[in-house]
């Protein structure tokens, strides 16, 4: 009861404090990534690390970002909401973040791989593409006639 101030600034401060509290989980994840890179190089074995499986806050993300940095590829999927697929500054280490249609994060992964599977065209989708193209082409041809 002794503190009467309840200003917006306090709330912002609280929110920032909450978002930036590191749990100390970034360094062990980075060691795991290093180990997984070895397996990718030696045996072409990819690894996926689910960041939703452990407490991982904005503060931890910051540590991860500082060490991994940004790389050469930055792709955005538009598949029931956006997904951000980025190669980090460490080639072979990718960030895959899935969002829902409202832009809320659904899941966060680190993939240690040559290219994340989600970027590849799925054969079912290619099949649907073949049907669509055939249909569009025949429509165009019949319009010409």
């Amino acid at each position: 009861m002794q503190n009467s101030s309840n200003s917006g600034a306090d709330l912002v401060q609280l929110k920032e404090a909450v978002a930036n509290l590191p749990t100390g989980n970034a360094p062990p994840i980075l060691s795991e990534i290093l180990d997984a890179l070895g397996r990718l190089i030696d045996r072409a074995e990819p690894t996926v690390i689910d960041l939703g499986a452990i407490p991982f806050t904005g503060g931890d993300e910051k540590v991860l970002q500082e060490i991994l940095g940004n790389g050469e590829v930055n792709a955005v999927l538009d598949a029931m909401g956006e997904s951000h697929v980025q190669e980090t500054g460490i080639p072979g280490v990718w960030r895959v973040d899935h969002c829902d249609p409202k832009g809320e994060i659904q899941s966060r992964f680190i993939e240690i791989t040559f290219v994340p599977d989600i970027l590849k065209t799925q054969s079912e989708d290619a099949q649907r593409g073949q049907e669509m193209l055939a249909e569009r082409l025949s429509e165009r041809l019949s319009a010409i006639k």
Partner: protein
Amino acid sequence: MSSSPLLPKMMKAHGVSRRSFLKYCASLTSLMALPPAMVPRVAHALETAPRPSVIWLSFQECTGCTEAITRSSAPSLEELIFDSISLDYHHTLQAASGDAAEHAREAAMKEHHGKYLVIVDGSIPMDEPGFSAIAGISNLDMLKETAEGAAAIVSVGTCAAYGGLPQANPNPTGAVAVSDIITDKPIINVPGCPPIPMVMTAVLAHYLTFGIPDLDELGRPKAFFAESIHDRCYRRPFYDKGLFAESFDDEGARAGWCLYKLGCKGPTTKSVCATVKWNDGTSFPIEAGHGCLGCTEPDFWDNGGFYKPLSAPAGDYRRVGQAAIVAGVAAGAGGAYLARKNKAEALANHETVDAFTLEKEEKES
């Protein structure tokens, strides 16, 4: 019709690409606490799962569980999965009413005998059948009749799972949980007041894909109820350092310190609230500055007061409640007797409290 896989067809009709589906499976696998390597298996199982008939029974409940599941983020594949079950009876959602509605339930029970899934929300009154009845059929009779031919039962919400709010002191209706009555069918408890919508759909997806999930000693899927909220809480480092908020507006509360001393039940409450979160991943109670009420645990309503720290004596409500669950699971019919016994004890223990007393206690402490 009801046994053919529907998801691939529905995805095509809604223009959902396989890539979107795989993206959803990645998030679902993460949510189900399965390793990322399981994504292809989850995808395959979802695509080939037969479409089950579902009968949803609502007993002594507030419709909050139905509200929660039908308000999950839209348009989403969760919705598609929910749509891909054949919901043959749900008296709040179905268009039919009266005789036609009851006939739909009877027809589904007859046609899919031994294969349909029963979802229950709400507790069952044992003192008087008339306390809660649908179309003149008491909740007890309807549950027994419907459970008879069920493949499994999902008790959604703390009322169906453990008696919940209707069972709270002094339990005026003699309310019991589904597991106090039905003892010969697999029962999955998905407690919460309400449960997290994503958890409800993920349990449904797990049932569709891999059958009954691994359950803990209270009948809850381990994927969502294995760890306490405290284990995953972002305020945990403050607890470890002994930094606690002493009131809801002190410096500690502002700095986001641990809410243990303000009655947070996180340490004894198992749920994924801290990681999955609420309102499409916005936040969870502790993030909003209020302690956890412990709503996924039996007898949470009577567990010594929401604002008393866990270390404070909580009376014997919790112990009595746990005994009722264990005995109920073991002896089924004993549930009604225990409920009455609980009620008598609760009446004897009942202490009245008003705002004035609470304020006085607050000032003294």
